[in-house]
């Protein structure tokens, strides 16, 4: 029994060390965001000293490095919120229809959605960017249509899988009581879909917020950029750019993500597991 106890302690110690390694990169970003530009390059791993510590100066210059950071953050926020809302609403409606109406057309659409999940973005990027441009889907308010289209596959797949497991008689009772399809869907089906909505929503938020290439190619970049594009622009000018300020900017960009993660950790982990197992 005692040996077993020792083994467990050893495992805990090993896991604690790995945890420190895991937190280390984020910690490095934090300490470097308080150091001067040259100190980031020459003494990357040192804690700030009285000579290299610059206080919040990096954050002040950082938010205007390569354009206004707040503007990029706002664009990212608009695109993420709108896209996720559109995907949740329209793919759940479609999934319900597909599950309840047994027609060849529905089956074809369903298989096309499943098919789209295995197509890598590079396959469509050139023509998709062209289409977005032609149809004016190149602003933060309109690009969510592209996200709905390209991201429909996984969402339809996950929703359909769940709707099929709901017993029909609840919906039938609603219809017999005189509920129209719209009310049946929103008052009866949507409440039952809530757990799947959360899982799909989490997956879409993580995808859209961090997505780089789709907005980079589709957005009108002279007017709108997102956080990943903003960061990549800084990386592109590596060497000339103020590294301390860049680190401040990086820290600002991961802070909301970490807060979001700690706030809905349970849902995130559940959503990821659901998406992975089904995908």
């Amino acid at each position, binding site marked *: 029994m005692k040996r077993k106890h020792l083994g467990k302690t050893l495992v805990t110690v090993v896991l604690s060390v790995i945890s420190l390694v895991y937190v280390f990169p984020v910690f490095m970003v934090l300490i470097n965001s308080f150091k001067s530009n040259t100190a980031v390059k020459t003494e*990357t791993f040192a804690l700030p000293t009285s000579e290299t510590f610059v206080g919040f100066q990096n954050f002040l210059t950082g938010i205007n490095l390569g354009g206004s950071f707040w503007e990029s953050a706002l664009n990212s926020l608009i695109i993420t919120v709108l896209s996720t809302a559109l995907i949740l609403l329209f793919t759940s409606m*479609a999934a319900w229809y597909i599950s309840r*109406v047994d027609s060849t057309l529905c089956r074809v659409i369903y298989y096309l959605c499943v098919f789209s999940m295995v197509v890598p973005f590079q*396959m*469509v990027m*050139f023509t998709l960017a062209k289409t977005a441009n032609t149809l004016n889907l190149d602003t933060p308010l309109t690009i969510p249509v592209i996200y709905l289209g390209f991201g429909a596959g996984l969402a339809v797949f996950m929703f359909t899988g769940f709707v099929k497991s709901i017993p029909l008689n609840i919906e039938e009772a609603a219809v017999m009581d005189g509920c129209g399809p719209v009310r*049946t869907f929103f008052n009866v089906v949507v409440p039952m879909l809530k757990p799947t909505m959360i899982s799909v929503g989490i997956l879409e938020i993580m995808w859209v917020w961090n997505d780089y290439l789709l907005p980079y190619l589709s957005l009108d970049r002279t007017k709108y950029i997102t956080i990943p594009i903003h960061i990549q622009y800084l990386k592109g000018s590596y060497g000339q750019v103020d590294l301390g300020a860049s680190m401040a900017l990086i820290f600002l960009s991961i802070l909301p993500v970490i807060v979001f993660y*700690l706030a809905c950790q349970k849902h995130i982990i559940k959503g990821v597991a659901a998406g992975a197992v089904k*995908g």
Partner: protein
Amino acid sequence: MKRPKKRANGNGQLISRSIRRWFPLFMGPMVAAFAIGFLWPFIHGIYLSFCQFRTTSDAEWIGFGNYLKALQDESFRYSFGYTALYAVVTLVLINVLAFAVAYALTQKIRGANLFRTVFFMPNLIGGIVLGYIWSMIFDGILSHYNTSILLETRYGFWGLIILMCWQQIGYMMIIYIAGLQAVPEDMLEAARIDGANRWQTLWRVTIPNVMPSITICAFLTLTNGFKLFDQNLALTGGLPYTINPDGSAVHTTEMLALNIYTTFYGQNTAARGTAQAKAVLFFLLVAVISLIQLRATRRKEVQQ
């Protein structure tokens, strides 16, 4: 991937009849967006892979020429080999480590939840940001030896592997934990009573029971490896490069997706047809891996 179930009894008829004519409302928006955001670009992309073009409006049909050029392209062939090697190395490393961590966390360890939270955290951070963070760390180390991650192929290769292990172990760990928790307790109990030690129990009882999770994670890491783009772009961007005798350049840490991207949007706009053909080949490769996965998981389901 199951097909929508056909309802054998007439039970579904009531709902089906009442919503059938509401197609435009329920399906319309999704189908329209799907056509714009996927279907049309996909078909148009296939067509363009057989054309010589700079923009979509000046396309001229040339047949299989683009495919020949793509297959003869030294940089494309190099990036295929490089990507395959990378995908296999991460497949092994990430799965072994993620399984080990998941196994440790399911042994009633104190603080298991905290560890799980920490290990999963990197998944929330986008690839571009991760690339920037890690290039700072690697260059912080390498600058002491007067070199940089951009200067040597092996640094770029192992750097990307360290980065991706750091990011994906937590993700696969979540799937393995779910699988491990589903192993029937009485089976483990029975093995213990029969005198099996920990190691035997792990190999004879636990691992056969989590085979479905292993299949899922193996294919996920494999496809993720082949499709990797953001982290590759942000960490090294393909650098360094070597010049061939014929004057063409091969970027030695450039993976398939990045190679397609640089062919599309590089200096030479006449190569866009080749780029689109490369993209189709890339799609076929990913699709074949997915098909094998589908068959592998199907067979497992039948056996159970």
